[in-house]
């Protein structure tokens, strides 16, 4: 096969890959638009099916949090930066507030790559009679992560 054919095939592959990437970027944009809001019932179903799918960040006070929070939620101080905290800024994250406050959500959502607001917040979660966890959480264990 001559060098011209090699170049032709390489160019063909490059064009196909570029088209694939373009399609992928479009698909991702659409998917991200949909996921800015999540309903309590849908979130509960998702957690039940795959516990690791979402990172749950709770912005309420420590006392409110310990009184009852979503299973596996991490508490973050309101106004605290996500950077440096024991959270994963690149994981799909659901931000939980008392009433699903948009302004509180927007303020923190900028620091996460993929953030969604829990519609109606903790109030809606409770009104839907979904299960809660209460008590202290193993903050040290969360902070450590796990090696290798």
């Amino acid at each position, binding site marked *: 096969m001559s060098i011209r054919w090699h170049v032709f095939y390489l160019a063909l592959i490059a064009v196909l890959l570029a088209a694939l990437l373009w399609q992928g970027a479009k698909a991702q944009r659409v998917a991200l638009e949909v996921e800015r809001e999540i309903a309590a019932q849908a979130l509960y179903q998702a957690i039940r099916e795959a516990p690791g799918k979402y990172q749950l960040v709770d912005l309420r006070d420590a006392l409110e949090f310990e009184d009852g929070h979503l299973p596996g939620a991490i508490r973050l101080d309101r106004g605290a930066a996500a950077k440096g905290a024991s959270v994963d800024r690149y994981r799909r994250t659901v931000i939980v507030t008392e009433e699903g406050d948009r302004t509180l959500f927007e303020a923190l959502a900028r620091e996460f790559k993929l953030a969604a607001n829990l519609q109606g917040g903790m109030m809606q979660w409770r009104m839907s009679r979904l299960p809660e966890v209460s008590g202290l959480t193993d903050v040290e*264990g969360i902070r450590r992560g*796990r090696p*290798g």
Partner: protein
Amino acid sequence: MLLGVFAFDAVFPYLPEWGIRSYPQSMTLPVLLDVSYGALAVTLGVLLLLGVAFADVFDPGKRLDPPAAKRASLLKREWGFASAGVLAGLLLLAAPLQGQYLGISGGVAALTAYLAKPFGLSMNSVAMFDDTTAWRAAMVVGLFPGAAASALLSGSFGSAAVTPLWAAAFPSGLKSRAVAAFAGGFLIMLGALVGGGCTTGQFMSGFPTLSVGSFAMGMTFFAVGMATAHLLYWGRWRKLAEVRGRALDLATD
């Protein structure tokens, strides 16, 4: 390697303070570039295959390879990269089905924690004894019978104080070999744990997730490995190729 685990465990609580380790971030290329996983994975896969084809055409070491001989059945010899690669790929798929991932260095740390437990010792870096740590420790235990079975089947079972490759390139005694192996084991374990995984965890399990950290770690691992090998075997290429051809009859099936 055990010393490496203990050294890592001793410095583990201070790593975030020193700015070396932070809370693990799942920074992957699809998330970073806003492109769907499938499109990006296929693109990178095609580029990787093109790269391999390119390297195969222009590999300067090829002229030193021994001529291909007739191969025995797969069950009776050592495997090449293709057949072993397919099996490793299936294993990589099987681990997430159990909610886990393959990683040796973290597994060794988990196993060490289990071994230390009866003596009343605990580890900073392995905080919890849960299903994950048990799975990973058990996997490391399973490596030994697995490796023995593989060596017995391929007929390469044997014992040598100094491996043929080392003996040919460095005509030296057991002492220097032992020191080099000890220092190498310590460094690789400590480095892998600080970096969040070894070639198995970062390279094999991390690459398919398109994790940026795994790419950085995997490439550093291999770049430094190649540089070290070039330094050690500097000017001894022909000898190295001869020994490789004789001692490791690796097929390219």
